[in-house]
């Protein structure tokens, strides 16, 4: 059984935010107005956080692309009263919108703040309505949503592999963010499969996981910048 995970090389990330755009486009994430965004109601399953280090003029900037960490021990699933969020056999933390009651316990339990509440029903400009991804639902108001590691792409890749009677290859299943990353900073694959790049990258001396001390066992690894 695969255990899907991600390694993000911070040295390679230029903060271009292509991953953010690709994610929004892939997963039908509706834009909100500037005023709503100021209130913290914007949704961004993949978010590039920026951090400035040093004193002006000797400053460096670091970017941290932050998707859902898909923890092996996710705090969000422990608090969900209706089992709308759960972890599947392959380690993907799912969110079942039709089951979610919008209590937001999970959003508050998540130390990485990657669960988003839909304050409103989605609104798109007329020109964008025919460009929605049919493989992903359009979430209604009042439910929590989150990064799914583009799980629908895995299902499609599996279908293709079965139809062609072959094994699933590493390049068959890549989430939109890893697919688009122009510098190859985001690497995705099976953490338990030695033939996948993430298998060795996660053992790199630069590898770290955010808030590892909480015991959440996230499956998103970062390669810290070289000095």
């Amino acid at each position, binding site marked *: 059984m695969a255990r899907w995970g991600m390694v993000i090389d911070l040295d390679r990330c230029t903060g271009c935010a292509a991953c953010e755009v690709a994610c929004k486009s892939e997963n039908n994430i509706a834009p909100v107005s500037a005023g709503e965004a100021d209130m913290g109601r914007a949704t961004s399953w993949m978010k590039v956080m920026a951090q400035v280090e040093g004193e002006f003029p000797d400053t460096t900037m670091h970017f941290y692309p932050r998707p859902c960490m898909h923890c092996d021990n996710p705090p969000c699933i422990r608090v969900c009263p209706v089992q709308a969020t759960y972890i599947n056999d392959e380690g993907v933390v*799912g969110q*079942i919108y039709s089951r979610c009651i919008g209590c937001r316990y999970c959003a508050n339990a998540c130390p990485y703040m990657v669960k988003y509440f839909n304050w409103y029903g989605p609104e798109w400009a007329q020109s964008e309505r025919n460009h929605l991804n049919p493989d992903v*639902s359009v979430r209604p108001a009042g439910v929590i949503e989150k990064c*799914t590691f583009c799980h*629908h792409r895995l299902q499609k890749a599996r*279908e293709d592999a079965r*139809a062609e009677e072959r094994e699933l290859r590493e390049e068959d299943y890549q989430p939109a963010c890893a697919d688009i990353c122009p510098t190859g900073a985001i690497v995705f694959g099976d953490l338990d499969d030695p033939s996948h790049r993430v298998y060795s990258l996660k053992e790199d001396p630069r590898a770290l996981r955010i808030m590892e001390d909480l015991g959440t066992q996230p499956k998103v690894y970062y390669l810290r910048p070289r000095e």
Partner: protein
Amino acid sequence: MQGTAADRGGFARLWWGYAGLGLILTAGIIITALLMRTPPVPQPVAFNHRKHTGELGLNCEFCHVYVKKSAHAGLPDAQTCTVCHQTPQGTSTEAARVTALLAEGDPLNFNKLFALEPHVFYTHRRHVGIAELECRGCHGDIAETERPPARPLVRIDMDFCVDCHREQGQTLDCNACHR
């Protein structure tokens, strides 16, 4: 001890009261059930499945062209019907009507009968194209019908899917169908 005439009158009134209440409740339940029923699905022509699949031996894929390749099986359009019905076929009045409609340039928009909830992601490709399941497993005896049914012949709900997945040892992961 015998009850008085007044007592007996009281019981009779009570009995009629209960009977009336029962009647109103039953009528209410029936009316609610009728109102909650899915609306009938109209079709442009009275397509005879039995004639086409049985007597003429056409396979399902002839009209539902994407059944092995895509999420939706697809419905035939005027172009598909034109293959045979451009010239009059058989003796039925409906076949004559199809030819007339095609001559008028009617697009023959058939309507989807078996529709799933929008939060369910089902693909025919996986079930028919790859797993090679039979159509009747989910669609019942649709191939035997002589007129288009107004409502689905089989109620496809989550129990229906999950029972089959359990029997066949297939995935029970929520993400497999809901996303």
